[in-house]
C-alpha cells in the first residue's frame, strides 16, 4: 500500500520536480542536465515577449479577480437573503459554473461573444456618424476579463456564502437593535466579518485567472497571456527558459494559494 502511494505521488509530482530541476540547467537542451545555473531565469525575465505576456496576464488576473470579488460578494449576500426555489436554482447555477470544464466555457464564450459581436457591429457602424471610425467589438482583453470573471465569480460566491452562513443571525439583529440602519449593519458588522473570505476569494480568483490556459486560448483574440505564450513556445521545442518561467509561475501560484488557505483557516479559529 505504501509503495503504491509513493508511486502515485511520484507520478504526480516528478514531472513538476523535473521542470524545476531543469530550469537550473546550464546547457541549452531540455533533456540533458549540464551543470547548475540560473542563467535561464535571467533570460526569461529579459525576454520582451515574456514580459509582455506576463503584463497581460497580471492585468487580466487583477481586473477579473477584483470584479469577481465585488460581484461574487454581492451575489452571495443577495442569495443569503433569498428563500425557496429561487435560491436553490441560483445555488445550482453557481455550482454548475465551477463544475463545467474550462474548454466548454471557453468554446461557449467564444461562440456567444462572436455571435453577439456580429449582430452589434453592423448597428454600431450604421449608427456612428463616421462609418469608418465606428468602434468594432472583437475578442481581446475585454472578452478575456469577462470570461475569467464569470468563472472565478462562482468561486468567490461559494467561499463568501460559507462564511455568511456561519455568521449568527443574532449579530445582525443585535446591530439593528443598537440603532444601526441596514446599511450601517452591513458596513460595520457584516463586511468586516466576511472580509477574510472575500480576500481569500480574491486570491483564489487571481490564481485561477493567472494560470488559466484553456479559456484564455479561446477568448483572448490577439492578446497573449503567459500560459498562451508558454504553449506557443513549446511548439518550437522545450527550452530551459520555459522551465524557468513555469517554475516561477508555479511558485507564485502556490504562495497565493497558501496565503488564501491561511486566511480561511485563521478565520475559522476566530
Amino acid at each position, binding site marked *: 500500500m505504501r509503495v503504491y502511494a509513493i508511486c502515485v505521488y511520484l507520478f504526480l509530482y516528478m514531472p513538476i520536480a523535473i521542470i524545476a530541476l531543469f530550469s537550473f540547467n546550464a546547457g541549452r537542451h531540455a533533456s540533458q542536465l549540464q551543470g547548475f545555473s540560473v542563467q535561464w531565469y535571467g533570460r526569461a525575465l529579459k525576454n520582451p515577449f515574456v514580459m509582455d505576456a506576463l503584463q497581460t496576464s497580471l492585468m487580466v488576473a487583477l481586473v477579473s479577480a477584483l470584479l469577481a470579488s465585488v460581484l461574487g460578494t454581492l451575489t452571495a449576500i443577495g442569495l443569503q437573503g433569498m428563500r425557496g426555489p429561487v435560491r436553490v436554482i441560483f445555488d445550482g447555477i453557481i455550482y454548475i459554473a465551477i463544475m463545467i470544464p474550462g474548454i466548454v466555457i471557453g468554446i461557449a464564450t467564444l461562440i456567444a461573444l462572436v455571435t453577439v459581436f456580429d449582430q452589434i457591429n453592423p448597428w454600431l457602424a450604421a449608427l456612428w456618424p463616421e462609418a469608418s471610425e465606428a468602434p468594432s467589438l472583437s475578442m481581446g482583453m475585454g472578452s478575456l476579463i469577462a470570461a475569467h470573471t464569470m468563472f472565478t465569480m462562482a468561486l468567490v460566491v461559494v467561499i463568501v456564502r460559507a462564511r455568511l452562513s456561519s455568521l*449568527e443571525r*443574532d*449579530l445582525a*439583529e*443585535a*446591530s*439593528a*437593535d*443598537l*440603532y*444601526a*440602519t441596514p446599511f*450601517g449593519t452591513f458596513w*460595520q*458588522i457584516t463586511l*468586516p*466579518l466576511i472580509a477574510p473570505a472575500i480576500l481569500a476569494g480574491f486570491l483564489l480568483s487571481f490564481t485561477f485567472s493567472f494560470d488559466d490556459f484553456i479559456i484564455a486560448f479561446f477568448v483572448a483574440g490577439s492578446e497573449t497571456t503567459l500560459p498562451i505564450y508558454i504553449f506557443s513556445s513549446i511548439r518550437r521545442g522545450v527550452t530551459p527558459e520555459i522551465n524557468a518561467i513555469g517554475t516561477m509561475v508555479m511558485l507564485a501560484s502556490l504562495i497565493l494559494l497558501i496565503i488564501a488557505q491561511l486566511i480561511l483557516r485563521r478565520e475559522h479559529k*476566530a
Partner: protein
Amino acid sequence: MNVSPAPAGLSSDRFREETAPVAELRAVTKRFGDVTAAKNLNLTIDRGEFLSFLGPSGCGKTTALRMLAGFEQPTEGDVLIDGGIVNDSPPFCRPVNMVFQSYALFPHLTVEQNISYGLKQRRPRMDRSEISRRVARALDTVRLAGFENRKTFEMSGGQQQRVALARAIVNEPKLLLLDEPLAALDRKLRKEMQIELQDLQRQLGITFVLVTHDQEEALSLSDRICVMRAGEVVQMGTPRDLYDDPKTKYVADFVGTSNFFEGTVLSVKEDMAQVELADGSRFEGRASDSFRETETVCLSIRPEQIRLTGKAEDGAIEVVVQNRIFLGEHTEYLVRHSSLGNIIVLAPRQAELAGTAFNQGDRAWLNLSREAMLVLRQD
C-alpha cells in the same frame, strides 16, 4: 387609563409619555405560516417594573419579546411603546434594547467598541468624550472596568454576559429585553447574575422584560410574571399570587411543585369546595374559581404545606415512605398512599431535628389541611 390619541405637539407627547404604560400589547396575534406563535396577547408593561414571560419552549414568550424589539411584526393587533403604535417601526428606530441568549457580541470589536456601538449610531453624532464617559460608567456598573480593550471571545461566559448587559444599558433604553440571558451560565454564576440583574434594575430604574423557562428565576427576579402556554397568556400576577393562587393546574404545576389529585366537585359553599376523589375519599379545599357541581377538577397541595407525622391524627391519611432525599435545609420525602399514589412532602430541617425523621418503608400520616388544599380547574 385614557390613551386616546392626543393632539400633535411636544407638550401632548410629554403628557402621553408620562401617563401611558411604557409598552403595551393589544390583541396581538402572530402567525408564522400555519403556526400561531402568539394568540390574542393583551398586556401592559408599567414603567420601572420587572416583568417576566414564563413558559416552556415554544410557548410564544420569545415571539412576544421579539415583537417588542421589532424583529417580528404582529399579524394582528398593535404593539405600543410609550403610547404610540410601533407595529411598522424597525428595530433600529425603537428605544428598546435587547440582551440576546447567545449574547451576540461582535467578535471583531473590543469590549469598549461593543459597548459604544449603540451610542455611535446616534444622529446627530454624540460627542466622543460623552461616549467614553458613558461607556466607562456602564463598565463600572457591570463591574468590568479595566476590560476596555479585551476581545470579547477571550472572556468567560459571565463576563461576556456582563458586556452584553453593558452594551444594552449604556443606551438608557425605555425597555430592556432579556432573552433567557442566564441560560448559558452554570448554576452558581446564574445565582450571582440574578442578584446583579435585580440590583441593576433597581439602580437604573429601567423597565426590564425577561423571557425565561426557569420558574425559580422568574419567581426570584420579577415584580410580575406572565405565564404563557401555547401562545396564550394563562395567568398574570406577582410571584406570590401565582404561587399561592394559581388559577389552573398548569400554573400550579409550572410555578413551583405541587401534588395533584383528580376528582369531581360535590358541593360548593362560599369559597370552599368539597371534592370527591376517584377512590371515594372526600376533601375540602379553597375554590380558585366558581365551580359547578360534578365538574371535574384538580386538588392541589404544595409539598411544604403537608405535615408528615408519626401517629394517626384526626383526618390524616396513612402512607408509606418510599424515598427520602436530604436537601440541606429541607428533606424531601416521596410517600405512597394506597389509592392516591405518590405524594411529595417537603419537611423543614427543624422537624428532622425534633426527631420526626422517617426512613424508607416507615408508616406515616399526612395532614392535609383544608386551607392548604386548592381546587383548580383541570386543563
